[in-house]
């Protein structure tokens, strides 16, 4: 389970998150949507402490961090180990082969042997439809391939929850569809996922929970079909209207 309690974060005096509470159940897929500047990405990045919240609590599995109190590096790494993150711009390591991108973190973070890590990497790359890409460098791969490699890299560390930060926003729609397909399969396998996205189809059809954010807070949360069909908050209504008009 992932639980965020009363989370606040400001950048240079501008509040970006104000007292956000969110609970994500094991094995569910949650979409975070909302207008830009709503704080979706910041909320996601606070969950693995890429951003340090000013106040509030983050709990993932058995690990809990209170932003107000001091926590050790060990606690920080323990929390991050529970999460895998996929970025809008993939952020693969350009100086390593695709295989090494997936192998090195396993060696460094899980202490796996090279053979073990390579075996796992090959398995994951095959699952992503990239079995033959191991020897390539990331820049020789298409955007959609790079994003699937990034997903494999994160999955290789066996995270409890996967955080996706606009994973298809930098991709052409049809390439994005390949990535969404992979994410859909992951969801079907029971992976806990939190997805910041503008893909309303994915949010509606794959996600169990829809969280609508605006101005640093959650304004509506619940069943995606219901919210999209009958939004109760005027901000949700205008946002959905704007997005679905496109």
């Amino acid at each position, binding site marked *: 389970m992932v639980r965020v309690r009363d989370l606040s974060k400001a950048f240079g005096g501008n509040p970006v998150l104000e007292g956000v509470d969110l609970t994500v159940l094991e094995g569910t897929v949650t979409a975070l949507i909302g207008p830009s500047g709503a704080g979706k990405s910041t909320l996601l990045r606070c969950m693995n402490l890429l951003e340090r919240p000013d106040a509030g609590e983050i709990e993932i599995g058995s690990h809990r961090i209170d932003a107000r109190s001091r926590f050790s590096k060990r606690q920080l790494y323990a929390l*991050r180990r529970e999460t895998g993150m996929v970025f809008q711009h993939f*952020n693969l390591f*350009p100086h390593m082969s695709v295989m090494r991108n997936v192998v*090195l*973190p396993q060696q460094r973070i899980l202490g796996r042997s090279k053979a073990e890590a390579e075996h796992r990497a090959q398995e994951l790359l095959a699952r992503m439809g990239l079995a033959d890409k191991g020897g390539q*460098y990331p*820049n020789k791969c298409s955007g959609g391939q790079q994003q699937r490699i990034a997903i494999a890299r994160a999955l290789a*560390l066996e995270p409890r929850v996967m955080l996706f930060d606009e994973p298809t926003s930098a991709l052409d729609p049809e390439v994005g569809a390949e990535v969404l397909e992979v994410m859909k399969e992951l969801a079907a396998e029971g992976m806990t996922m939190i997805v910041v996205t503008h893909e309303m189809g994915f949010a509606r059809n794959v996600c169990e929970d829809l969280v609508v954010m605006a101005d640093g807070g959650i304004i509506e949360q619940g069943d995606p079909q219901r919210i999209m069909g009958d939004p109760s908050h005027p901000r949700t209504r205008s946002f959905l209207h704007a997005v679905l008009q496109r």
Partner: protein
Amino acid sequence: MLHAVLTGIPLTLGVTAAALIIGTLVSLPLLACTLSGNRLLWLGARMVIDLLRGVPIVVWLFIFYYGVTLGSAKLSAFGAAVLGLGLVSGAYLAEIFRGAVSSVSAGQFEAGRALGMTSRGLWADIIAPQAWRVALPGYTTYGIGLLKDSSIASTIGVAEMVFQAGNFARTTGNGIVVFLLAAAVYILVSVPVGILSRRVDERMSAVVAR
């Protein structure tokens, strides 16, 4: 005449190499301080860098030559030259490395952190290898510059190539040829280094275009 120039070559290369090594070693803590995010460390490193770069090398060499004593013994001319050139190099190299590090995208740091890498692992496996590729051309250019700047050591009496050539010119009254010869040696060393660096750079960016 050839003999005069040739006898100076080992010290020219020695001063250059030793200063480059010291400079590299000095640049790393300076770099770490400027990147630490700690204001005091940053300020301290900035002051050291600006101080070292703000004074002409020849002045530093005289300061170290006349000013640094080890117990009762004075620093040798070679020691003063290597120390002075090395420290100044450290300041310049710290800046070259800092530029290279800042060329590595923030996403690389984020990806490493999100994977749960320790900061040491992040630097060793992700940032340094990428930054090094960016820094290499600037580093070699600096190294070639340093080779030429090592001639400044002649002012405090290090018997490197320019010192030897000067001596020869003074004693024989024949200056032009011996200095042309010295010039040729500088070119003979620096041009291949430059070519080699470009080769390596091309090869690396062919594999990993960014």
